[in-house]
């Protein structure tokens, strides 16, 4: 696993030399500040709607960054044939998969820290508070969620042929899980028998990305979540990430490169 770290750093370098992140960050900041400049009933301490908007933009931005950045990694390597000199080095394909994953994930982590700093400053100007534990938990869990998404995109980029269709599929799947994942059990219970078991099975098999969404707790100043739940969610993310990386490795292991 010696090659993992160098590969990851090259990925991070690439992502930060492209403009995507800056564009998204500037847009997020701009929209948030624009909305922040509206005063409702001459009260400048109203904070939650702004926090909610800012977090929504952060979630969309980082999801887009994670998926589009990861989905093109391996296809671009193959299209531009940079994979050939890379794999001609004493590097295994597993190391390439893990390195690409790690690079994308770390880049997302850096992006998250920048976004959350901005969020922290925005909400501090309104609420005059720095609930650091809450911020840490929210950032960490969102990062864990992005690990699953990144691994999923990486596996998808090997399973689906075109990188754009892969990005679309992963984006749709991730959004669908975030929106309805939590309710699939409720839906299942309303269905007749064969469908019920199927939907319930899907409910248990899906990676529940919405678990990692602490936005509402953050917006409404709830207390931090229990640390055991935080740790369990981290392990949950780890398990799914591992599964998707395994899928990626299995489909990449024997594949002809050209």
């Amino acid at each position, binding site marked *: 696993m*010696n*090659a993992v*770290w*160098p*590969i990851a*750093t*090259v990925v991070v*370098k*690439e992502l930060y*030399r*492209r403009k995507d992140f800056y564009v998204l960050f500037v847009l997020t900041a701009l929209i948030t500040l624009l909305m922040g400049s509206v005063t409702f009933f001459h009260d400048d301490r109203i904070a939650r709607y702004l926090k909610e908007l800012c977090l929504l933009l952060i979630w969309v931005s980082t999801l887009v960054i994670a998926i589009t950045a990861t989905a093109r990694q391996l296809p671009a390597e193959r299209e*531009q*044939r*940079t994979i*050939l*000199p*890379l*794999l*001609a*080095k*004493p*590097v*295994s394909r597993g*190391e390439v998969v893990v390195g690409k994953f790690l690079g994308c994930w770390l880049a997302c982590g850096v992006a998250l820290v920048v976004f959350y700093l901005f969020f922290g400053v925005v909400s501090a100007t309104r609420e005059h508070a720095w609930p650091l534990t809450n911020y840490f938990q929210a950032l960490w869990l969102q990062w864990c969620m992005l690990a699953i998404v990144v691994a999923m995109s990486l596996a998808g980029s090997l399973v689906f042929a075109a990188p754009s269709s892969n990005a679309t599929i992963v984006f749709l799947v991730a959004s669908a899980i975030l929106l309805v994942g939590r309710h699939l059990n409720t839906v299942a219970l309303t269905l007749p028998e064969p469908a019920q078991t199927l939907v319930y099975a899907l409910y248990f098999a899906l990676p529940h990305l919405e678990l990692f969404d602490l936005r509402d707790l953050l917006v409404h100043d709830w207390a931090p979540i229990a640390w055991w739940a935080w740790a369990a969610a981290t392990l949950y993310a780890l398990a799914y990430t591992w599964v998707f990386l395994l899928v990626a490795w299995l489909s990449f292991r*024997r594949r*002809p*490169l*050209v």
Partner: protein
Amino acid sequence: MDPILNIDNLRVEYRNRELGQGVTVALADLSLRVNAGEVFGFLGPNGAGKTTTIQVLLGFVQPTRGSAQLFGVDVREPTARQRLGYLPELTYYYKFLSAEELLRFYARLFRLARGEAERRIDAILKLVELESARRRPIKTYSKGMQQRVGLAQALINNPDLLILDEPTSGLDPLGRMKVREIIDRLRGEGKTVFFSSHELGEVETACDRVAILHQGQLKVVGPVAALVREHQASLEQVFLRMIGYPPTPTPA
């Protein structure tokens, strides 16, 4: 003495994607050995299977049958490539990195110590004459410069075996000369060079031994001088005869 590069009964079939099904046999039972210190020319017309052979040696393509070793290690093991340098037929490098960063990245993959890596990067950039452009992103390089980056990355680990896939195709005369110079220099250092080509002039002067491949089959192997003597013809005539040109049956 163990060969540095060993190919045993290698067969590679490509499944045809078209409706007709069936397979293309890119390599049919190829066996080949290259010894340490040799400069070996791997000849064949377009489509003979040269690139396929090299891709098996690098683990890019799984053989249908047979096996191959580098330094006595199966090519499926990444460690087989520790002392190897490879220049692809056609390639591009990470455009967003500079030559220096690219070489540093590859040096890390070979686990070179930092100080040594920097020394080698300086030396190699001098060798391929990219010193003045070393900090510019590769995307600003001309085509010739990009090819020289390719050569530089193949040499970064001071390899004992260098595999070059048509290293001179698409180069201008100056570029070819540079490649030949480098091959000579490596021979002087006692390195092994395995390169494919269909340009016979340079092969004749540069190689100790050659192999001629045609339609996936090995036609002949041996020192250039011995082949010329044996067939009573120039290398070019031998080559043409081996690939069935002129299409009249050749006398034994």
